[in-house]
């Protein structure tokens, strides 16, 4: 059997990083091939080269045994290579049909295309209405648009970049059914993920990348999740010790917290009621785009709400801004590191001042206390092992993991009573993620309450004392996290989903 795609010692360097170092492997027709690796292992660069978005520095690709060097995505698509992006390449203010047209080389006329979309999407169990605006679709539906766009072009190879990170467990099952059907029709699938259970369930073979190099290949069926993880990380996986959870007094109370959506395609918050007690870590799961950002903003004080909706130690603070909330001990660390939690062009000292001013007294009558500010920045860097040449380096010059350690450290070192974090370890290397989780646990241990909003169920299961799901702006009632199975969580997500649809 001749390979569909052969990759021969492909290399690509960016300033300061060897993204891919002589990567070679093969994909057979109809094969579901996993590309495994941690964040930063070089998976994205590799697939961008196959899709013609990035040109390799050296090496060669063969498609059907022919030399294959697409100089732009159009060429790759014409050769039968299609790709579903992790961050969708969709246009919110445009319709499904318009979006699909944009991703096709020679799109048929409007009415014919609409008919094709309906037909293909129904055939693969991914129903879509061609006339709806993307902005009005759920994240799962948006992914369908991407997939249908690929399918309409009869691809030979379908590349999927972290497709399930945005899906509910039910949606993941639907996706897998679709992918298996494609595979039986002879379409090869290059499946990028770091979720080992999924890979075991779906893929025929796997190539594992670490630091831009191929460090192993395997047949996922014959491996355990643990053995693959160890290949991926290149060391032994340390499992965290279970925590003894003794809830203390109530610190944060949300009652009937509602927020109409602000931007045209945003999600509104609907009647969120929950309490956080001293020593508690509440994990809030759910797929991004279901009100996670809005929840964080109403808690940080960036969006004020009615006073009674948020209470801190009994005091109604819903109408207060970020400064007043910090004074009272409610701190937050938003998801987006560059541009929200930190200013990219500013130094670490200035970024320390950004949120540390109030509790640490870094300004006196408005005048910046440079020495105190620098000492605080220095403290964060030392205690949280932030790797940087100097505290006067700009935030943007740090790696994702180091900057995230800085951002979390900055809030933790202010001794909050309640800390809310959104996606604390997103795009962060394993070592940094472990350090961040440990810091949050230590905080709870010392008597603070922590709310962790995350899409990473594994992370939430590892950290949380109590767990709830945010879906379509509704927050489910928190349950003890110990003993919850993935199936039960899936049901929680599905339940809130249905509630929302019936409402």
């Amino acid at each position, binding site marked *: 059997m001749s390979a569909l795609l052969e990759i021969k010692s492909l290399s690509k360097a*960016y300033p300061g990083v060897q993204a891919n170092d002589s990567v070679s492997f093969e994909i057979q027709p109809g094969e579901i091939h996993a590309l495994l690796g941690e964040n930063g292992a070089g998976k994205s660069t590799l697939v961008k080269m196959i899709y013609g*978005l990035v040109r390799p520095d050296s090496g060669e690709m063969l498609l059907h045994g022919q030399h294959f060097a697409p100089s732009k*995505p159009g060429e790759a698509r014409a050769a039968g290579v299609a790709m579903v992006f992790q961050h969708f*390449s969709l*246009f919110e203010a*445009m319709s499904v049909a318009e979006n699909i*047209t*944009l991703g096709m080389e020679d799109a048929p006329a409007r009415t014919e295309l609409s008919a094709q979309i309906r037909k293909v999407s129904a055939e693969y169990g991914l129903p879509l209405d061609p006339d709806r605006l993307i902005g009005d679709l759920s994240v799962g539906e948006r992914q369908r648009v991407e997939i249908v766009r690929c399918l309409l072009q009869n691809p030979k190879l379908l590349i999927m970049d972290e497709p399930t990170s945005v899906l509910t467990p039910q949606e993941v099952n639907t996706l897998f059914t679709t992918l298996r059907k494609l595979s039986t029709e002879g379409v090869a699938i290059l499946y990028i993920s770091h979720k080992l259970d999924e890979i075991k369930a779906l893929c025929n073979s796997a190539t594992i990348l670490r630091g831009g190099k191929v460090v192993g290949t395997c047949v996922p069926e014959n491996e355990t999740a643990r053995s693959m993880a160890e290949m991926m990380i290149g060391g032994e996986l340390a499992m965290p010790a279970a925590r003894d959870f003794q809830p203390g007094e109530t610190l944060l109370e949300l009652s009937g917290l509602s927020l109409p959506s602000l*931007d*045209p395609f945003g999600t509104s918050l609907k009647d969120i009621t929950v309490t956080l007690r001293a020593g508690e870590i509440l994990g809030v799961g759910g797929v991004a785009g279901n009100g996670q950002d809005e929840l964080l903003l109403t808690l940080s004080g960036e969006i004020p709400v009615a006073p009674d909706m948020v209470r801190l130690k009994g005091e109604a603070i819903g109408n207060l801004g970020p400064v007043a909330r910090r004074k009272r001990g409610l701190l937050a660390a938003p998801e987006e590191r560059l541009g929200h939690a930190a200013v990219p062009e500013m130094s670490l000292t200035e970024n320390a001042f950004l949120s540390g001013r109030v509790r640490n007294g870094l300004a006196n009558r408005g005048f910046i206390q440079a020495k105190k500010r620098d000492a605080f920045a220095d403290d964060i860097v030392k205690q949280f092992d932030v790797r940087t040449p100097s505290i006067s380096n700009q935030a943007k010059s740090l790696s994702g993991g180091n900057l995230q350690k800085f951002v979390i450290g900055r809030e933790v070192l202010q001794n909050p009573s309640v800390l809310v974090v959104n996606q604390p370890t997103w795009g962060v290397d394993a070592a940094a993620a472990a350090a961040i989780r440990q810091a949050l646990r230590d905080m709870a241990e010392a008597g603070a309450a922590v709310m962790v909003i995350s899409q990473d169920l594994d992370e939430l299961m590892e950290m949380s004392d109590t767990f709830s799901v945010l879906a379509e702006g509704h927050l489910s009632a928190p349950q003890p996290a110990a003993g919850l199975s993935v199936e039960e969580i899936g049901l929680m997500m599905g339940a809130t989903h249905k509630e929302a649809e019936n409402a």
Partner: protein
Amino acid sequence: MFGDLSLVSLIVSLMIASTPILFAATGELVVEKAGVLNLGVEGMMLIGAISGFAVAVSTGNPIVGFLGAAAGGAIAALIFGVLTQYLLSNQVATGLALTLFGTGVSALMGQPYNGLKPPPSPRLDIPVLSDLPVVGPILFSHDIMLYVSLLLVAAVWYFLYRTRGGLILRAVGEDHNAAHSLGYNVILIRLGAIAFGGACAGVGGAYLSLIRVPQWTQDMTAGVGWIALAIVVFASWKPYRVILGAYLFGGVTVLQLNLQALGVNISAAYLSMTPFIVTIVVLVIMSANRRKTSLNAPAMLGRIFHASH
């Protein structure tokens, strides 16, 4: 009510007063749909006004003059284009620079042309129809460029909403990163839009110097380019509403000029303010609904694009 002012001639002069704004605003609409904010409209109009005038005078052909104006406006716009698209300069500042530069360049170019008369532009009086009372002069008896301005709006609408090219241009303005990852050349598409916008602004400027006034005077646009920018906001980035906006402002301008001519008992200076004050009022009304504005405005408006690979 307006003494011996005839309503028909008022409407006709309104249409003539609106046409420069209509050209410039339609061009800017395309630029903004591609996600680029070019504040240099005033400068491009001035450059168009003088290049059109100069070409028309030296060739004796006003149509060639308008082509020259389009070329002049497009070249000026491409300075902005190269700076913002390749050298990633701030669009607001670069647009301002283009206006300051255009004001100077047009004054410099215009020195030999002060006081000259341009060749008359061809008219299109549609036989029979143009002799109809009221409707005739309003609809069927104008210079060619006025018809062109209306056709241009229709063509832009057709391009943006009925062709693949228009779809791609709008996509680039909605999300340049997504458009890039689908393989579209964001920079070239934007440069094309910027050049088109400049050409339209140039033609609008030449309409002033060749038809409306018709002669060259320094700084003759007197804020019309800025009003054109406001009209795009007023129109919520919809082509047909640009016509409405442009004619509204043409109307205000003509009305206040006529009132001045009638010697109404208000200082001429106060009357001259009105188009600008009306612009502000309309801008405020159109912008007040933040949700609607953010839905209509191209999402990438004014944002810098740099492909990281």
